[in-house]
């Protein structure tokens, strides 16, 4: 590999146009895929599932309308309308029918859907009744699991309603061997299956399905080749005509055969990336180490004078635009958890090679520049940092961070690699890791990680310690005794541990049920073809064909649990300021802050159930009247005052995120309650569970299902995100916050941790600022932190911080020759900084 050239290349007019076209309209739901898969499935009843899947995939790719958008150099669109989405009734459909009339106007990720599309979908959806993965999964779960889900301890909604996705495939094999190479491998394997093999039939069907699926993708590319030729014939602009002819030639050649040029390599990559998402609705299908597998073609083309850096950058930018052309409509609740139309196609640059040398190359820089050029949410760009990372690359990454786009996310090789090795991954494979989706470390092309397998709310089991397992008037969890029966802090922790372990076991039950449903109903032959060792073993990915198998559900709310435990330890048991029962009452009464509608409804439901249990009739009017009463209920003044006083005492306590050993040690322990039990459990694919500690954006909606907690958090407000301190509780600046978070045992959370930090643009303005920013990341990583991402806050945030200072206590801004906590400044100074920010951002 030659020495890297980091010179930036300018963005072209074409990219500006492509981006504008992409966002001209609201995204739209289309019906073609749902119709095609239904047609195919109706015609193939009685055949093995894997065969039906392959035939349906072929039928979809044959029938899906295709389009080349104006000015595109890389082609392949899943919908006619830009940023549109298809539907996937084989996984679930009833939520969409229920939301037909609201999906366009909902707050999180709205989609337009025409009356015609609704009608078309209504015709095909009924076929899937009783045949979806979600229905099968539900039937495989224990009743206790269903109950726990009803009570919001966790939600596996992701795979319950959708395909799994969350993989990185062998893009490199498609690029350098072609799909023809993979088909030849499958054909060779087919020859080798012995007549006496106990799974002869399954293997044979699967390998045949692989071949059908690969051919389907080749044929799909040929359709684009024909379309490009046809459009070239009609094109009057000579330059565009030439482009279209080149597209025609490219699509005739790749992905069938090995790519001959960088441009062909990118087109081959794109067809894989796009069709994987047509095959199933899984999100987080992540390009991974793009700068590594694209580099040989880039190097060859530039060395041999076929490719300029300018054109290479434009092509990359085109791929970045395409990554934003794909979209997915989720159910309303999931949409809130994954807000921002994100498909989480994570693409990572830098890091180490398999043999442990620095991997930085020209493309590492150009990928970061592409993100700056298109300035869109996809790909989720990331950077691997290790002790030998090129400083220039980290500074370029810091420049992207400075723009406020929130990218790249920074990952620490020095903890991720050993954490992966600890889960049985070889050192070469661990050094080659990429990131899936949000933050999940993954072995490229070799793993079925089932990352993102569920959101587990660590605050809910804590609530159960106070209520003895009762939620909303009914038993919802294990009984660990009344609050008055808990006499020591150790007993309290033991009760929490029991509540956690009980619900974690149910989470495992839910995930394994869904896992089996996918194995049975949704083996995906094309995806399987591109992941080791599915072909050699003759087993689809969904049935355990991958070389490495994991299930990675994520917990969140550590900061709340840690601060809560600290409250119980100090104020209840050490200083005896109040008893556990009194605290339980204060939590139930939301610290005397009155009830919001959710609590009122819960209380009313509870009352109604009690009445019903006595055999009395409960009418809707009665419930409504109870809600009204609860909403306007006044606590006796003395009682209300006492609860407020309790909360005041709690708020005065030191909190996680301030570099205080005692509190941070409790946080480390709190995380263990979630991370430690999981690896003891196995999934149906032969792998183990491993914990993640990150919330995506679910900490807000799931916080809304959580009552008041002993850290002073009021009912139904957001819980802390990822491993970050509670927003507004970290008061000693970024280094203190980093030190606290680094004190958690990140290696145990081998499915990823997520640390969000806010930084003001003025603290990232000069070259020196960027260098210090890099040192901040490195200082956190030296202490074995795993991941970091930054919110470089803008004026709008500052205005909000001014209106709601309690939410932004940790926000650092540069004032003059010094930096300060924004909320501690006078109003006039805040105004001044807000004004300056505006200037700062338009430099």
């Amino acid at each position, binding site marked *: 590999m030659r020495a890297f050239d980091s010179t930036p290349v300018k963005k072209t007019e074409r990219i500006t146009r492509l981006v504008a076209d992409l966002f001209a309209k609201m995204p739209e739901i289309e019906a073609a895929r749902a119709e095609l898969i239904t047609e195919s499935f109706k015609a193939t009843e009685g055949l093995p599932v894997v065969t039906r899947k392959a035939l349906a995939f072929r039928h979809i790719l044959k029938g899906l309308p295709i389009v080349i958008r104006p000015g595109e150099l890389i082609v392949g669109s899943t919908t006619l309308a830009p940023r549109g989405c298809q539907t996937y009734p084989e996984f679930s459909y009833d939520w969409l029918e229920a939301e037909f009339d609201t999906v366009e106007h909902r707050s999180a990720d709205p989609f337009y859907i025409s009356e015609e599309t609704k009608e078309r979908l209504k015709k095909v959806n009924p076929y899937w009744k009783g045949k979806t993965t979600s229905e099968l999964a539900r039937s495989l779960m224990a009743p206790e699991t269903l109950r726990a889900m009803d009570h919001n301890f966790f939600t596996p909604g992701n795979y319950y309603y959708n395909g799994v996705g969350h993989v990185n495939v062998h893009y490199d094999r498609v690029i350098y061997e072609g799909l023809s190479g993979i088909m030849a491998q499958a054909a060779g394997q087919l020859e080798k299956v012995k007549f006496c093999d106990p799974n002869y039939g399954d293997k044979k069907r699967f390998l045949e399905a692989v071949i059908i699926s690969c051919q389907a993708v080749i044929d799909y590319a040929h359709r684009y080749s024909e379309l490009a030729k046809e459009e070239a014939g009609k094109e009057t602009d000579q330059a565009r005509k030439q482009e279209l002819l080149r597209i025609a030639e490219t699509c005739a050649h790749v992905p069938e055969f090995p790519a001959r040029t960088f441009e062909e390599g990118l087109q081959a990559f794109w067809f894989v990336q796009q069709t994987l998402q047509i095959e199933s609705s899984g999100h987080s299908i992540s390009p991974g180490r793009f700068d590594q597998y694209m580099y040989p073609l880039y190097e060859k083309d530039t060395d041999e004078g076929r490719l300029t850096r300018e054109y290479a950058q434009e092509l990359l930018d085109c791929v970045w635009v395409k990554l934003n052309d794909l979209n997915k409509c989720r159910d309303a609740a999931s949409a809130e958890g994954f807000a921002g139309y994100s498909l989480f196609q994570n693409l990572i640059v830098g890091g180490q090679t398999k043999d442990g040398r620095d991997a930085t190359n020209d493309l590492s820089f150009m990928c970061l520049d592409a993100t700056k050029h298109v300035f869109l949410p996809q790909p989720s760009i990331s950077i691997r940092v290790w002790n030998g990372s090129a400083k220039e690359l980290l500074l370029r990454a810091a420049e992207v961070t400075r723009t406020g786009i929130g990218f790249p996310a920074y990952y620490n090789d020095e903890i991720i690699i050993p954490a992966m090795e600890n889960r049985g991954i070889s050192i070469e494979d661990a050094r080659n890791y990429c990131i899936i989706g949000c933050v999940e470390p993954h072995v490229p092309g070799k793993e079925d990680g089932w990352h993102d397998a569920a959101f587990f709310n660590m605050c809910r089991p804590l609530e159960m310690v106070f209520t003895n397992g009762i939620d909303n008037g009914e038993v919802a969890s294990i009984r660990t005794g009344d609050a008055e029966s808990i006499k020591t802090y150790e007993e309290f922790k033991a009760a929490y541990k029991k509540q956690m372990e009980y619900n974690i076991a149910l989470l495992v039950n839910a995930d394994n049920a869904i896992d089996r449903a996918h194995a049975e109903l949704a083996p995906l032959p094309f995806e399987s073809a591109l992941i080791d060792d599915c072909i050699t073993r003759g087993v689809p990915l969904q049935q355990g064909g991958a070389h490495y198998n994991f299930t990675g559900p994520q917990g969140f709310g550590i900061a709340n649990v840690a601060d809560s435990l600290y409250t119980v330890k100090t104020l209840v048991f050490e200083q005896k300021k109040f008893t556990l029962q009194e605290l339980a009452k204060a939590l139930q009464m939301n610290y005397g802050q009155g009830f919001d509608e959710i609590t009122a409804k819960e209380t009313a439901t509870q009352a109604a159930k009690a009445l019903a249990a006595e055999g009395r009739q409960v009418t809707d009017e009665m419930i409504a009247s109870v809600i009204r009463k609860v909403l306007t209920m006044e606590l006796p003044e003395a009682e209300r005052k006492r609860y407020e006083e309790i909360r005041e005492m709690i708020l005065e306590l030191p909190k996680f995120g301030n570099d205080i050993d005692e509190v941070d040690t409790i946080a480390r322990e709190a995380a263990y309650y979630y991370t430690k039990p999981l690896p003891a459990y196995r999934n149906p694919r032969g792998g183990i569970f491993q914990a993640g500690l990150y919330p995506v954006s679910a900490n807000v909606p799931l916080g809304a299902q959580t009552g008041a907690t002993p850290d002073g958090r009021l009912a139904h407000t957001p819980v802390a995100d990822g491993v970050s301190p509670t927003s507004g509780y970290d008061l000693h600046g970024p*280094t203190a916050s980093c030190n606290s978070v680094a004190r958690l045992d990140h290696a145990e959370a081998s499915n990823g941790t997520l640390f969000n930090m806010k930084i003001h643009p003025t603290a990232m303005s000069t070259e020196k*600022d960027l260098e210090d920013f*890099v040192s901040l990341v490195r200082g956190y990583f*030296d202490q074995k932190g795993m991941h970091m991402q930054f919110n470089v806050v803008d004026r709008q945030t500052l205005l909000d911080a001014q209106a709601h200072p309690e939410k932004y206590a940790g926000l650092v801004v540069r004032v003059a020759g010094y*930096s300060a906590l924004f909320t501690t400044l006078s109003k*006039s100074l805040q105004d001044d900084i807000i004004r300056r920010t505006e200037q700062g951002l338009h430099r």
Partner: protein
Amino acid sequence: MDDYSYLNVRGRIFDIQRYSIHDGIGIRTIVFLKGCALRCRWCCNPESQSFEIETMTINGKPKTYGRDVTVKEVMQTVRRDMPYYSRSDGGLTLSGGESLLQPEFAEALLHAGKALGVNTALESMGFAKYETIEKLLPYLDTYLMDIKHMDPKKHEAWCGRENTLMLENAGRIARSGQTKLIIRVPVVPGFNDTEAELLSIARYADSLPGVEEIDILPYHNFGEGKYTGLGRDYPMGKAERPGMEKMEGFRAAIERATDLRCQIGG
């Protein structure tokens, strides 16, 4: 046997600020020592001036400024950011107030900083006998020295004391060759915001051996609220902050007239 008694020296501080990235090289922790010899009208840290422990009202709530601590206690906080100092060549900065009014404490803190192996800096006007300053120099990497004006009378009128001692100290510190000396000038409207006055400071700085850099810092009124909090009147009234254009003009003039590198802000 090593003598660690410096760790037990006590002094009075009013703040410790971490992740300070605009006061010297790298990521730094600034320890603010309480008490000052001057009473500059534009001072943005009025709570630093008196050595006495004071109460300031912030957003309606009383807050105490000033606490007595040992060097060991201060270092417990300072050492927490070691990983960041190592990655950025940063370290410990003493500011004030005038740190030299607590000479033993300042010396012990800098000693502890060097013992920790981090970069050390001091923001000071040099208001002390040179013998006092001399004792600090072995532990000091960078001296950020304020020179506010060359005219002793005007200096006295605006800062409460004349500048002879400080100018003399600047010369002796520079000649000692023991520390990197950077000159800092607050540009204050009505006091020194003319090219002639700034150039006379710059020329003096340029004449000092080893001095390569001068920082000019535009006046700001961010301290105004603190005066109110302390129940005091704001001495600068409605004075306007020097604009960027004006500062750029000064910077260019200084770089034309001297061999110094001039930076706006520090």
